[in-house]
């Protein structure tokens, strides 16, 4: 690996609840190189968001706790760091944007104030300079009339515009890694296209890496270079994007890709959608062995006995399946 920014090794983030331990993230390996866009896909409850928040240590502890593993940021483990040291990394080196642009902005401050606050937090600047910086950031994310709009409040922006503001805020300290947690899920498809385009543009401009968390395979196919597929707290497959879509190896990945209707193919109505039977297992006392075994059409006896490790099937293409 040329220049690894983030290297997550065997991460286990568990949550203590009344009936036991929820193994939300249960042994995840994931690495992101400088300037790379990595997609993390999976259904709700697969642990993708918890993985992302673990990186910035945004998990409430308790009930959460790191059970095992390392989060290496440029070779340095983040897990033992205290809040003060983490704050030097947050925003300045790793920034995050969330799904809900409606609730991620504080409604009682102007967007300029909020961006300027982030800028001032990490750079020694006068309030005036910080505000000018905020306007500059708004201009960068293509918000029309930025000099005036810095003085507007979040409710005066539409959903797509608010997500632009969030991106502006996240990029204001020029982080090396941007974690985008379902950034377009709450948006309409035409606005989603605008935001994805913007993220692409920003990446070219700042040369940062992006960790894109999403459940939409289409978004992954169009924006990422590498993809990690998660299921029930574990990584089941990891591959370059072309390899993953051309030759998905894990039955879960195959099911995910085939269960989405395609508008670019002429096989429309006559073809039945391939579906994955059953539902995601509970992460409280998860099944022994492969977590997908209960829903897998190729499941065999050995699948329920041991958890299959990730093994390399092609360069950069690793899969956790006995097949």
């Amino acid at each position, binding site marked *: 690996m040329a220049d690894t920014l983030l290297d997550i090794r065997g991460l286990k983030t568990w949550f203590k609840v009344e009936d036991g331990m929820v193994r939300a993230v249960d042994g995840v390996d994931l690495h992101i190189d400088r300037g790379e866009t990595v997609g993390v896909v999976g*259904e*709700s409850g697969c642990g993708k968001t918890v993985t992302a928040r673990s990186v910035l240590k945004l998990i409430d502890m308790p009930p959460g706790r790191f059970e095992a593993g390392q989060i290496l940021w440029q070779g340095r483990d983040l897990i033992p760091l205290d809040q003060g040291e983490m704050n030097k990394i947050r925003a300045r080196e790793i920034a995050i944007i969330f799904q809900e642009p409606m609730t991620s902005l504080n409604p009682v401050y102007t967007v300029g104030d909020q961006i300027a606050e982030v800028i001032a937090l990490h750079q020694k600047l006068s309030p005036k300079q910080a505000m000018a910086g905020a306007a500059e950031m708004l201009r960068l994310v293509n918000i029309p009339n930025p000099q005036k709009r810095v003085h507007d409040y979040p409710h005066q922006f*539409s*959903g*797509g*515009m608010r997500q632009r503001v969030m991106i502006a805020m996240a990029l204001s300290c020029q982080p090396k890694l941007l974690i985008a947690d379902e950034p377009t899920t709450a948006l*309409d*498809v*035409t*606005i*989603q*296209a*605008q935001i*994805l*385009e913007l993220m692409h543009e920003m990446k070219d401009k700042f040369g940062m890496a992006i960790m894109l968390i999403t*459940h*939409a*395979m*289409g*978004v*992954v*196919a*169009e924006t990422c270079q590498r993809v990690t597929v998660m299921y029930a707290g574990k990584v089941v497959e990891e591959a370059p*994007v*072309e390899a993953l*879509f*051309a030759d998905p190896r894990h039955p879960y990945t195959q*099911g*995910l*890709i085939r*269960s*989405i*209707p*395609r*508008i*670019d193919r*002429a096989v*429309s*109505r006559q073809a*039945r*959608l*391939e*579906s*994955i*039977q059953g*539902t*995601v297992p509970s992460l409280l006392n998860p099944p022994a062995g492969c977590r997908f075994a209960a829903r897998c059409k190729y499941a065999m006896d050995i699948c329920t006995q041991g958890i299959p490790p990730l093994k390399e099937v092609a360069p950069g293409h690793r899969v956790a399946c006995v097949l």
Partner: protein
Amino acid sequence: MNAPLAPAEDLLKVRDLRKRFAVRGGIFSRTVDQVHAVDGVSFEIGKGETLGLVGESGCGKSTTGRCILRLIEPSSGEVWFQGNNVTRMGGDELQKLRRDMQIIFQDPYASLNPRLKVGAIIGEALTIHKLAPTQKAMEDRVVQLLETVGLQPDHMHRFPHEFSGGQRQRIGIARALAVEPKLIVCDEPVSALDVSIQAQVINLLEDLQEEFGLTYLFIAHDLSVVEHISTRVAVMYLGRVVEIAPSRELYDNPLHPYTEALLSAVPIPDPTVKRKRIMLQGDVPNPIRPPSGCHFHTRCPIARPDCAQRVPELRESKPGHWVSCHYSG
């Protein structure tokens, strides 16, 4: 307004449907403004067909669905179901209509009463319309409905919170099926579900359509899902239908610039496909003060000056392919 031709016999006909919501403010709750949620919508659905209704949030697609069911009273326009004017119906007639038209909701968590057992939720329609003479008949029917949607008979004794999203959606479908409806309005039935569960529910809806000869009005914002399930698709923008065409035709040859932009914005799950994307500038305008003339002219890549003055009619550009644009098609 001219009616787009529909195949076979029409089960439902919607004519110039309008719904304005009052925006109240000031003292004495005066009506200070009006939201034109649905602004003159016309279409028809043939028996056994699935009409997809797509558009972005706030385009009025859900309001249209609810006006057809009279869950919301339309401000004007007509809805004809099997030759009867739904908009004029009262009391008993409307009650009878409830057995012919049903609805499936988007949010499987909000659409089931948390304090009732699944059996009671599904059986409610049977009680209301006196379709089950005895307790036994009621239970048998509920069991039958549960099996029809792929659930277990013993699920009837459980409460909604014990089920996953996909299973709740099945319960909602069973409830709608209880009255043996002819038309089901599906209001974003899969958009709250996980990808792998979406396919299960879509397949179920298709199986049920075949089994019971159902007709669907399928409302959704996900164009790939709509394309998959619909025979014809109507695209809405700011309360108006901008284009109606057979599903494949619409996706292969979109005529309205909005449809074109919408389709090109859908991400395709194949990294080898590279397309030219039509980027729409800006956001959907405020429906309180929609743009004059063609509602889309503020964002339209091919707009000309007179688009702001003249409202385009929905006209048949090719057989079965209707578009409302002055300059395309």
